Each structure stands twice: as C-alpha cells, then as structure tokens.
C-alpha cells in the first residue's frame, strides 16, 4: 500500500489528467460493448498518431515557455512538398519524404529565428508562419489535392504487423519513448525545463537560450512535417487544406496533460495522457452515436472535468 501510494505521488502533475483518462475509459467500457476491444483500441491508436507526433514537438515548445501556432499549416506544407516532388517531379519517394521533413524543419527554424533574432513574441512569429506556410502549401498545386501514392507507403499506416502495430503507430510510440527519456534523463532535456522556468536564470547558468530555442522550434517543425507524411500515408492523398485548426487540438492535448503554458512545468507523460483523452473521447462519442452537436458539449465538459479532477481531489482532503 505504502509502495503504491508513493508511486502514485510520483506521478506529480500527471495525476489529475490520468484520473480523468481512467474514469473516461471506465465509463466508455461500461456504456458500449465495442469500446474495450483490441481492435477499437488499435483503431484509436491509428487515429491519434498525427496528433501524437505533433504533440511531442509542441510539448517541447510549451516547456520552454513558447507556443507554435504553425503546426497545422506546416503539416499541410510537408504533405504538399512530398506529394509534389514524388508525383509531379518524379523524385524517388523516400527522398521526397526527407525533403518534406527538411522543409518543415526549416519553417520551424525560421519561427525560432523570428523569436530569438527579431524579438517577436512566439505567438506572433508562429502566427505569421502559420499564414505563410498555408499559402505556400496552396500555391504548389494551385489548391489541388494530390492522390495516388505507392502501396508500400500507404501500407505504413495500414498494415498491422503481428496484427498489432502499424509502422506509423510504432513511429509514434518510439518518438514518445525517446522524448520521454530525453526530457527526463538527458541534460539537453533538463535544460528545456530551465529555459521555461526562467530565461534569465538559465542564461546565467550558462545555457545558450537562443540556440536552444531555435533547436526546439526546428524540431517542432520537423515533427509537424513528419505528422504530415503520416497523414498522407493514412489518407493516401495530400491536400493543402489538411491540418486546419490542428494547432489548437495539439496545444489542448499538451495543456490537458498538465504542461503549463507559462513554461518550465510538465512533460511527455502528461502529453500522452492528453492525447489519449482526446482520442478516446472522440472515438467513444462516435461509438455511442452521440450527435455531433451534443458531442461538442460533452467534449467541452469532459475536458474541463478531466483537468479539474486533481483540484477537486485536493480540496476534498
């Protein structure tokens, strides 16, 4: 018992959302007979991959006290660059993927430089990038979508190896693991917490705050680009309108997971919980055949409850 409760205590900030997640899953398991099946859970894993991959980058950005509004647009740009290079320019597909991710990383770097060099608030810098990246994504094919990718590529998102993991889900899991390890156990990860906790203290401690910031936005851009590649595989097509509004979803997943928008507090564990809450909630409401309008109300209420859980638990004592 002692053991358990100290483990529980060690969860720290993740505790509130985690209670919310468990309660949500229990409720859905009891109210539908389709929710708690291997296949459905695997479906949800597929459904959250794009959000999950973007949320990793966003966690880093929010940890250093920033925000990235451009992820949805960068995702679309990545898809279009990949599709255009492969299908219109005839580049080998693998190379097209690499270039797409590099272009996305470049978008992130530009956002970072706008913040560190031009002194723009992250909100403005990435809002500008959001608009620019979407514009470029649309111009590439004059707004047309691109369809028809090689089978091996779309299979990455479809074929479940050992009837469990598709490659894309595996990629997400591996990235979560890496991010978790880096943020917890690597000096580079710990430094992000310091920068988010106090830029001045971090700087005086010898951390290169500007360089760190540029790296974090670059990574966030690259991950949004990777998410775009995954989405393209999943949809077997690329559209310049993809990812509209994803920035808010992504930020929401991170914040629901307990990472503070003022920086320095939080982590990947919480983000995983946040992504799962959003994923299971949407899936469960569809399984329950709740009408979309009522869904919106339920989603709002559940998000509030999930995050408030911890506050109330503490009050009760």
């Amino acid at each position, binding site marked *: 018992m002692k053991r358990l409760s100290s483990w529980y205590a060690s969860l720290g900030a993740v505790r509130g959302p985690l209670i919310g997640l468990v309660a949500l899953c229990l409720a859905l398991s009891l109210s539908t007979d389709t929710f708690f099946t291997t296949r459905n859970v695997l479906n949800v894993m597929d459904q959250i991959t794009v959000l999950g991959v973007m949320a990793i980058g966003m966690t880093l950005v929010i940890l250093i006290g920033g925000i990235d509004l451009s992820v949805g647009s960068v995702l679309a740009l990545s898809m279009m660059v990949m599709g255009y290079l492969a299908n219109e320019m005839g580049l080998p597909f693998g190379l097209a993927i690499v270039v797409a991710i590099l272009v996305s990383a470049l978008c992130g770097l530009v956002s970072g430089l706008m913040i560190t060099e031009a002194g723009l608030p992250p909100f403005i810098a990435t809002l500008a990038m959001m608009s620019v990246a979407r514009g470029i994504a649309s111009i590439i094919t004059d707004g047309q979508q691109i369809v028809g990718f090689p089978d091996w590529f779309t299979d990455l998102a479809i074929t479940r190896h050992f009837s469990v993991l598709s490659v894309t889900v595996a990629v997400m899991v591996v990235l979560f693991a890496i991010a978790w390890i880096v943020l917890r156990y690597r000096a580079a990860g*710990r430094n992000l917490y310091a920068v988010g906790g106090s830029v001045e203290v971090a700087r005086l401690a010898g951390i290169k705050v500007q360089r760190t910031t540029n790296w974090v936005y670059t990574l966030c851009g690259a991950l949004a680009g990777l998410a775009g590649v995954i989405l393209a595989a999943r949809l077997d097509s690329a559209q310049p309108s993809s990812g509209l509004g994803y920035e808010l979803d992504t930020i929401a997943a991170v914040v629901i997971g307990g990472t503070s928008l003022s920086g*320095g507090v939080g982590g990947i564990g919480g983000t995983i919980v946040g992504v799962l809450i959003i994923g299971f909630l949407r899936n469960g409401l569809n399984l329950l055949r709740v009408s979309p309008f009522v869904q919106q109300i339920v989603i709002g209420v559940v998000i509030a409850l999930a995050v408030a859980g911890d506050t109330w638990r503490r009050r009760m004592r």
Partner: protein
Amino acid sequence: MSVPPAATGNAPTGLSIRGIKKSFGDVDVLFGIDLDVRPGEVVALLGENGAGKSTLSGIIAGAVRPSAGTMTWNGAPYAPHQPGDAIAAGIGMIHQEMRLLPHLSIAENVFVGRLPLKGGRIDRDTMNRLASAQLRRLGLDVPPTRLVGTLTIAAQQQVEIAKALVLQAKLLILDEPTAALGGHETDLLFEQINRLKAEGYSFIYISHRLEEIARIADRVVVLRDGHLVATHDTAQLPVRTFVEAMVGRSVERMFPDLPAPGGDVVLEVRGLTSAHGAFRDVGFEVRKGEILGFAGLIGAGRTEVMRAISGADPRRAGEILVDGKPVAMRSPADSIEAGMVLVPEDRKAQGAILDHSIAENLCLPNLDTVAPDGWVRPARVLAFAREGIRKLGVKGVPDQAIRNLSGGNQQKAIIAKWIARSPKVFILDEPTRGIDVGARAAIYDVIADLARAGMAVIVVSSDLEEVLGLSHRVVVMSRGRQMGILPKEKATSVAVMELATA
C-alpha cells in the same frame, strides 16, 4: 514569558495573538505563538532562517491563514481572510523580497490597490507628488513616473518601503526591509519609523542585521523552530544574548582568519566600461586565494560591473583576462567556461527557478559534473543535491520547490549551486542578504575556504562591516567610477565612506 496587556485604559489596545499555529501539509511551522504589540512600540522579531518569522507576519497581515489560534486588534476579534481585510483594519506589511510590478511606474507601485482618486479618476499629480515625497524621505531621488523594472534591487526595496509607509497603517510589519539597503538608507528609514512611532504607530520589525536592533527596537521577541523562545522588554542588550536565543548556542566569532593570498593573478580587468553607461574605466586584479571586497553606496554601479565581468550584460570597452588569457565574453556561458561564476544580487529573478526543486536548481549549472555523459541519473542528482544542502546547511529536502523555502534558505541553496562548480573566480553579489547570523558565519567560513583552496573571490556588499571583515583589499565605487583600492590595513569604515561619498 508572555507580556501582560497594556495597563493603560480599559479596553486592550494594539494587537494580541494567542496560540497561533501553522502547518503546510505535513510540515508544522508554528507551534502556538502568543504575542502582543502595543501602540507606539517597535517589536523586533528575531530568529534563524526558517524559524517562522515571515509565516507569523503573513498570518497577522492576512496573507496566510493560520491552522489554529486567535487574534484581537484593539480589543475586537481579528481574523483577516485576505490582505485587503488587514489593510482595511489598519495593519500593513512589507513582504520579504516581494517583487513589485515591473511594468508600472514607481508611483503606481507605491499606491497599488489604493490609487488616489479625484472625481472617480485617478489623480496622477497627487499620486506622483506623494510618492516622490515619500521616496525622497527614504533617500531615493528618481522620477516617480519611471518604470520599476528599470530600478536596482535596492531602489526597489525602497519603493516597497514607501508603499508600506503610505498605507498609514496603525501596525506595520517590516520583514527584512534593510536587507538590500546600505547604511545611509537604513538611517533614513529609521528616521521615518521613529517619527511615526511618536505618533502612536506600532511596528513589528524583522532583520538579520542584529546591530540594528538596539537602535530601533523597544522590545525583542525570538523565534526558534516555530516556538517563541525568548521575550526581552528592552533591546539594549548585547547582540550575543539574541544570538544565543536564536541559535540555541553561542556563535564564537563572525569573521574567519583569512589565508594569505598566493602570487598568481587569476582575474584581471582592464578599462571595463558599461555598454549603457552604468560605469566606466574599471580595472583591478584578483590573485589566487585573495578576497577582493567591493564597497559603495547603493547605485554605485558594483552590481553592473559584476554582471559585465560575468558576461550577463554587454560592455562597451575593456578587457577581461583569466590566468592571463583574454576571455571573449559574449554570454554567461563563456564566463562559466573560463571558470568564473556569479551569485547574483537578485535572488528571485536571477538566482533560482522558484517553481523547480532544490535538486533541479542545484544541478542546473552542474550538469557537466552530475551527468558527464549527458545522462542525468536521479540517484546522482539526489546525492549531489544532498551534498549541497548539507554543505550550506539549507533547511529543506532535495525535491522541495525553492519557492517554499524561507528567504535565507533560498540564498544558501543558490550559493551551494555555484560553489559546486569549484570555479577559479567566484563572485558573490550581496551574499548574505537575508541570511541569519549563524549561517552568515558559516558562509564566511565557506568563502574563506574557497580562497584557501586557491580561488580568486570577489565579494560585493552593502554591509560595510562584512566587506571590511572579509576582504584582503577593498575596491570603493561611487557613481559608476572606481574611486580607489584600499588594502586591509587602510580599509577603515571612515576611509571607505570618504571615497564612497566623494
């Protein structure tokens, strides 16, 4: 040992508290405190770092809710739910190192929450006039419209004091108001206190500068580990008496014997000039094992010099050499790389990440030693933090947030974080601000040990006794100019003050 209520009049006047207890979660901080404060008296509240002085004051001022106990104010039950209630009842407080609102003007900070109005509109003229007058009386002569964020810590402390004085509170609690001040400013503050005292206002006065107590206090109350352990009806007692009550033993001597400095020059500064005009043409050297003191009135520019040396601020001209090699100083990282560290003056904004744990804060600039291969192992972090906590006697545990430490213990943790780097040059800006006597002696020992171990040490302090007692040589600054360097034997308080006010 509690004091009988005032015998004048029928109704008891002033503040009277009985059986006040406080715990934060499982940690008990106050164990049933009884205390009376009568009109027109100054009660000094003494105690080691973490004894519970700020917590008790916070309870009286409505900022902290007690776990048990009662209070009466002028005979009526008094149980403030929020600071506004206390202020409305005529009880105000200066919080220890509370930050001001950096983006607002001095005047607005002084009057925050009670802006003077005329016909519903803010009366800016009156506000600026009153703020300016109050600040001048305290020795700060800057335009009241200036933004507080542009002021030094000392000036901010004066604004904080002015903010409390304009409250016209019948009882005013001053929690370490002089920690960041120099002697002159302290004198001016005492003048104000004495004037108000004569008009029947009363004060609770908290300070670790015990020599101030005899000058200002009428009575003395001592806390130790959350218990009230002594009450003296006069402050005219030897400092030793208070110290023994606080610490529970006698503290033998304040300043350690200084080792003789070695021959090699470690740090050399030539023609250093600030990029934004705070100082110019500063030059000196520090040898191996030498402690170089920096004295001056507040605002003399000492802090700015140290920040420039450590790469925190840009410089316009000048050279910095460590071990004879010029250091290309573009950022603090370069300075740390070259073996220099700075314990900054502004603890909350520059010293520690308040929401992070002691362990995280201690490891921050030491990851190259805690995690030489880049892997931050929790066991190593914990061991490293325990070592730092032990060395400086920090009252706290590794995973406690720095924010929840008492002010003095925060300072100790910050020093611990930098000592661990074993640098070549160790710069401390106001190292004992808010530190209790016992711990102060311990820190002086640590500083002497650093010198003995061959570091070059710079100590900046507005506490003249401290600079003189601790340094081999003293640099005196005034208005951004280096006025002279006095060797230990010539460095008397008179000589220093002459240069500092020249």
